[in-house]
Structures are given as C-alpha cells and as structure tokens.
C-alpha cells in the first residue's frame, strides 16, 4: 500500500517534469511565455507582425472577443504596419541636404559635382569603415575587384558562384573618376553594379567616394 502511494508520487513527478520540459524553445516552437500579455506589443512594431486576429484571445481581459496579440493594419496592403512614404517625400537629414535628384543617365553632369565633405582624416576613416561594410565583398579590401563575391570561393573542393563584372578600381578606366562620378554610381549603379542608394545614406556615399580616391592612390 505504501509502495503504491510512492509509485503514484513518482509517476506524477515524471509527468510534471515531462510537461515542463515541453516549455523549452527549439525548432519552430518559441517556448512557453510567462505573462504573455506583457510580451506582445498592442501597438504596431517594426519587423514584427501578428496577422491572426484571434491570436491571444485567451489573455484578453476586455471581453471583446478580440485577440490580444493582433497588431497588424488590416487596411494596408499585405496587412503591413508601415506604408512606403508618399512619392516625393523628402527625408530630413542633419546636413539639411536636399535629395539627390540627378537621374541615372546624367553621369557626365554628376561627375562635375564636388564632394561637400572635407578630406579630413576622420572622414576618410569613416569612409574606410563604410567601404569595408558595403564594397569589400565585391571590390576587395584594396579595390582590386578581388572580393569573395567578385571572384568566388572554393569550399571543400566546390567552387562557389560569383558575380562577374566587378571593377578593379585601380584599372585605367577608373583611375580618373571624380568623386561625383563615384557617388552617382553608388546611388544608381552602373553596368552590372546595382543601385546601392537604398542602403547607403548620401553622406555615407560621399565618405565612401572620398575613401575610394584615397585607395586609388595607394
């Protein structure tokens, strides 16, 4: 009799442990949440979106039958929380610069534009850091067009694919580019290089242009 009771206790303990072990996150399961209604933002949040209107009904204390977690905008395309800014929206920046409005075809005119930044050591250092982030993988650390994306890598005897047409910035055709030219090409892309204007802010593009000219002298 005593043994039976012990056995029961043991079984309950095992079941409890197994249940709690199921709380652990892994794979597609994010794990059990504690105080779930403090975890999910009711307001719209960037880069997170719960589109299921009934999600979290069980934690809703308002008794209105709505899910507590739902935080998408039903009236936007694809229920997105944010919409693309209206056309011709001007982004404010600390320099008070107006948007760059020179079209892709006007490379010749763009080449005549002067870099608004000075060639200070700090700006060139910034340019180097930005070059390392945005240009290195194709143009290579020295600008020789030998970045890993530009030349391909070989992993375990398998040659990985690469992007062709990466300019060697020390090539004769590129040595005489002006900083305005470089800025324009980063913004709009040229030949096989695609526009990077959406990734790099204008001030950063001028910094990179400054650094590329320094790099070419080496």
């Amino acid at each position, binding site marked *: 009799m005593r043994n039976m009771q012990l056995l029961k206790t043991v079984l309950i303990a095992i079941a409890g442990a197994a249940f709690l072990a199921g709380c652990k996150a892994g794979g597609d399961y994010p794990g059990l949440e504690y105080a779930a209604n403090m*975890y999910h933002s009711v307001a719209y949040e960037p880069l997170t979106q719960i589109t299921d209107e009934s999600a979290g009904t069980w934690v809703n204390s308002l008794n209105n039958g709505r899910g507590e977690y739902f935080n998408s905008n039903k009236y936007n395309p694809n229920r997105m929380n944010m919409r693309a800014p209206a056309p011709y929206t001007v982004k404010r920046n600390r320099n008070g610069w107006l948007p760059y409005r020179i079209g892709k075809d006007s490379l010749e005119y763009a080449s005549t534009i002067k870099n608004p930044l000075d060639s200070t050591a700090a700006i060139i250092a910034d340019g180097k850091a930005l070059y390392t982030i945005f240009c290195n993988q194709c143009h290579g650390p020295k600008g020789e067009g030998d970045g890993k994306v530009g030349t391909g890598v070989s992993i375990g005897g398998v040659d990985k694919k690469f992007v062709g*047409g990466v300019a060697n910035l020390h090539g004769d055709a590129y040595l005489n580019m002006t900083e305005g030219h470089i800025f324009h090409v980063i913004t709009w892309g040229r030949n096989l290089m695609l526009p990077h204007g959406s990734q790099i802010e204008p001030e950063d593009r001028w910094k990179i242009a400054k650094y590329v000219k320094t790099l070419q002298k080496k």
Partner: protein
Amino acid sequence: MTHQISGLFKNLITALFIVLSLTSFSQDISSDAGVITQGETLFNSNCKACHRVDQKLIGPALAGIEDRAPSIDWIKEFVRNSSKLIASGDEYANKVYEESGKILMTSFTSLSDDQIMSILAYVKAEAEKPEEVATVADGGGTGSGDGVPPTYLNAILVGMIVILVLLLVILGLIISSLKRYLDQKDLTEEDREVVHSPFTFSSIVQSTGFIFIVVFLVASISFKTVIDGLYTIGVQQGYAPKQPIAFSHKVHAGEYEIDCQYCHTGAIKGRSANIPSPNICMNCHTQIRSGTNTGETEIAKIVSAIETNRPIEWVRVHNLPDLAYFNHSQHVNVGGIECQTCHGPIEEMDVVKQYSLLTMGWCIDCHRTTDLNTKGNEYYDNLLELHNNNAMKVEDIGGLECAKCHY
C-alpha cells in the same frame, strides 16, 4: 653624292623596317613568353572582371577572338571606345552588344596598341593550352566526399543494440534451461544453493533499500527537470524557426564574408538592425540565380516577391518582450560590440537560432562586466577623474537604471 645616296638608302631601309614591323604587329600575335606574361598582368587587372578565355561571363569568351573579329584594328577600336563603335552602326559591334545583354564594355582609352596586342597574345596562349586543369580539379572534387555520413553511424549503433538485446535474451534462455536440467539431477545442499540463489530479482526489487534508492533518484532527477523547465519559461533560447526562404547565413556571412551590415543596414543607425528588402538581395542575385545548396527554387522566391510586389514574411527569431527596450545602434555603433557577442556564430548557421538567453540577468551581467571605451571622448573626462581614472563599467553610467530599458 655617295654619302647622300647611302643616307637615303639607310632612311629607306629604316622606313621599310618600321612599316614592316608595324604591319607585323597589327597582324601577328606574338608567342613570346615575355609578351604573354605582360598580357596576363594586363588581362587580370583590366579584363578579368567581365571576360574569361574559355567561357562566357559578362562579355563573350575571348578564345579565338582574333579569328572571329573583323580585324585586329577593330578589336583595338572596340577596346578603346566600344560605345562609339556601336553608335557608328558597325555590324559586328552591335551583334556583340546584343549578345551581351546590351551591357556596354568599359572604354579603356589608355591601353596602347602594344598592350592590347600583349593581351591578345595571352588570350591566344591560354586558349591553345591543353586542358589538364579540369581533370585535376575533378580528382580533387571526388576526394572530399569521404567519411561515413552520420545517418549510417546511427543505423550501425541501433543494429548493435538490437544484437546485444538478442544476446541477453538468448543467455537468459540458456540459464533457465540449464536450471531445469540441473533440477532433474540429485544435487547436494551446497550446489542447490548455488543454482537457486536466495537473492532473486523479485526479492531485491521488493526490498526497502532498493525502493528508497529508486524513489530518491527519480525524485531528485524530476526535481531538477522541474526547476530547469521552469527556468525555460519565457526564454526562447534555441528557437530556430523555419523561414519562408531557406536563406543560409553560413553561405553569405561565412563563406563569402559579406559584412552583416551590408544587409542589416539599421544596426549602426537605429533601434532595429532591419531585414533587407529584396532589392538588396538582387544586388548579387541578378547574376547568381542558382544557389549551391538549394538550386534555383529559393532564389526564385526573391524574384517573385519583387515581381508581385509582396513582402517576404520572415519569421522573427529574437522576440524581446514588449516590456523591455533595446537599441542596436547604442550597442553596435556606440559600444562597438560585435554582432557575434549576442547572436553567436551566425556565420556558421544555416538556420538562425536564438543563441543567447536574452533574459534580464543576461543583459545585466554584460553591463556589469563591460569596460567603457572613453578614449577620445572629452565628455567623460570629468567623470573619469571622479572615478580616480579607473576604468568605468557600463553600470557606472546608468547601465543598471530600470528606466533605461523599462518605460
């Protein structure tokens, strides 16, 4: 008079020689080793980005160009100013332009006749080289697939366990049949005791000592599991959801060494590191249309997202609770912390998982132990003096204030 004639004759000969050498230069491609090496250097620094000798890359394969092109002079003109030649309506130039997907070749105005000829010499020498490189590469490729795959190892292990269990069963059967055989014989008291041991299986199991040990072990293991389990509630460490596109950080950040911030542009600028929009993917994937791991299916999803203008609904991996505020730029830009400090070896992950705990204790630990970098920042000069110029930790400037993260 004779002097003059001989002078004239000399001039004539030099003129003839110059003309001859010029024509020979414009017609014949040198096979001189020196010229070829010079050509190789020029080819690598100017042409290699878009051209290969034996395969089409951006521009056509260059092997046999000297026979294909209308003339050597045409090649020189095209190299120096391809757009002018195309605009002039030259038939072959326009054909090449169309075949290369209307991508203009960069003009190399500064290449001299000699330099272009040496590049041609290199191309010709390369094209005529016997193909031995390919076979060597093939041999290297098959060698790398050695070793037993883990699935086979598991199968072998399971097979061995099955064999062991079978052996136990067989041994048990042998013991019981031996016992039965011995029981039929007349045995002395001593022998009988050996055959029928007083410590049978059931007598051991029913003893209090045994029950106590088992209950103690089970109870303590369960207790530990319960406590461990309770600690995982609200902690999503290890969460590795399947994404709509099988994007591999291992390939992009690991093998190609693309900087994290090339795609996650927000990490130095703002609160969120940002998920790249498909146009950033297309910077490379306009050209690379089939991946080494997944073939064409996954990359095609990016293209279709752009064509249909539908956002890719990535599954968020790091879900910081709404009650805590976190800002990437404060840590990446101001603090200079590597992405890997919190996100772990992302460059080795095919599927991203939450590496760190992301609990409050985890944040606080780091704020207590991390030194503040005050170098070159005058703002901290007075504060440093107050701290007797000892290195300050993040907690010394409010890294433990509740309202820094909870508000």
